[in-house]
């Protein structure tokens, strides 16, 4: 827990640098759009994510001035992003390592639960049971 109380901001985000970053972001947006036009299979996902991470780090580091503030502020962002990855990783790992028939869409036997919708739980006595 790097200690970051009360120290002056060293360095500033000058308008010139922020304009440069703005143009860079626009360029990346157009680039990612063009990449998506022709289908590169699994590579298209990778490229799109790489460009998105690049744009996000530009915004976070300069527009949100993380570049100029050390310590706890960065840790807050890093932890939140790590938790996002943690949740996504284990959810997808679970889907992949599950018993195959427990995943949706391999078993369309299941009709829409019209019957379940109309279920009024407080049935007086269950069918046939004392």
């Amino acid at each position: 827990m790097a200690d970051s109380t009360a120290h002056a901001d060293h360095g500033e985000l000058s308008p010139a640098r922020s304009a440069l970053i703005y143009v860079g972001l626009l360029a990346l947006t157009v680039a990612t759009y063009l990449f998506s036009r022709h289908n590169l299979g699994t590579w298209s996902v990778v490229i799109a994510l790489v460009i998105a991470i690049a744009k996000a780090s530009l915004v976070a580091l300069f527009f949100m001035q993380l570049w100029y503030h050390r310590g706890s502020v960065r840790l807050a962002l890093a932890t939140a992003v790590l938790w996002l990855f943690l949740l996504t990783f284990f959810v997808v790992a679970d889907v992949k390592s599950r018993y195959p028939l427990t995943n949706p869409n391999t078993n369309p036997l299941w009709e829409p639960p019209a019957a379940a919708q109309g279920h009024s739980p407080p049935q007086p006595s269950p069918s046939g049971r004392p």
Partner: protein
Amino acid sequence: MNELLRNVLFLPEQASTFARKVDSLHYFVIITTMIASTVVGLTALAFFVRFRRRSETQVTPLLNPPWWLEAMFVLVPLGFFLAWFARGYSDFVELKTPPKDSMDVYVQAKQWMWKFSYPDGPNAIGVLRVPANRPVRLMMTSRDVIHSFFVPSFRVKQDVVPGRYTETWFEAIEPGRYQILCAEYCGTNHSLMRGEVIVLRPEEFDSWLADQRRGRALQQDGAPTTDEDVASVADLVRQGEKIAVQQGCLKCHSVDGSPHIGPTWLDLYLRREQLEGGGTVVADEGYLTESMMDPRAKIVRGFNPVMPTFKGKLAGPEVAAIVEYVKSLRSVPVEQARSRRPVYEPIRRR
């Protein structure tokens, strides 16, 4: 020793192979827990009696533990915990991979009752008959909400997810009657959703199964359900054939391999089909039921999409019956007793 500990801990009898394995780990874990907590409690009390405050101005030394003592107190519990995990996880993986030769039973959970149907045998409400000393695999699905199939005497529990299949297996070791309970909250009468596993000697079970298949034992075990007509015909396959004839499937699908409007059903099961828009599909239960519900989704090459959808016209059990019937159409002669599919590969290898 096992009996003594089992009674002390109020554990139900150990009626399955898995139960005995789990209970040995259970004893080790619970005894260590009791020892550890009593040791901590007694040490605290001993320290209190030994170091009680004698005078108001008593001075106490500044003490901090050496690093090795602290490290030891972390590593010793961690060692215990990881040992338990290793043993526990290997048992769990074994519980998750049913043996190859296990007998198949379809379980359907519905708000507040259990329904069991044997692939080539009878249906039963609330009572599951299994042979002793043979692994039984349960393919379970639910009609409405999440239930959980729990047999305390077998130490086996598995949630039943609606719309999907979850599987578990057990091998009962001694004949008897063991209670089934629902362990996942599923509504008003969650506590009344009980059933019974009746374990018979293998020869007893085979004779019961043969009776059922000949349709002689017409009276149903357990209470008949009111809102669902329990198929009286003993044989699911024959029932599937009856429905296929009623619904007019056989007008387009031949059963003896001859070409017809739709693909033939002979040897269709687990055959790799070439699809219209390229790509292939293995005709397993999933594909068979999907093509009944939504025929245009995957058309086999060389056939035109004329098949009407049966969504809403066929209830779940009827679709399952037709799927069984398709599976039974084999040019190779059908072996009565053993069910060979679906093919299980142990989870680890994939």
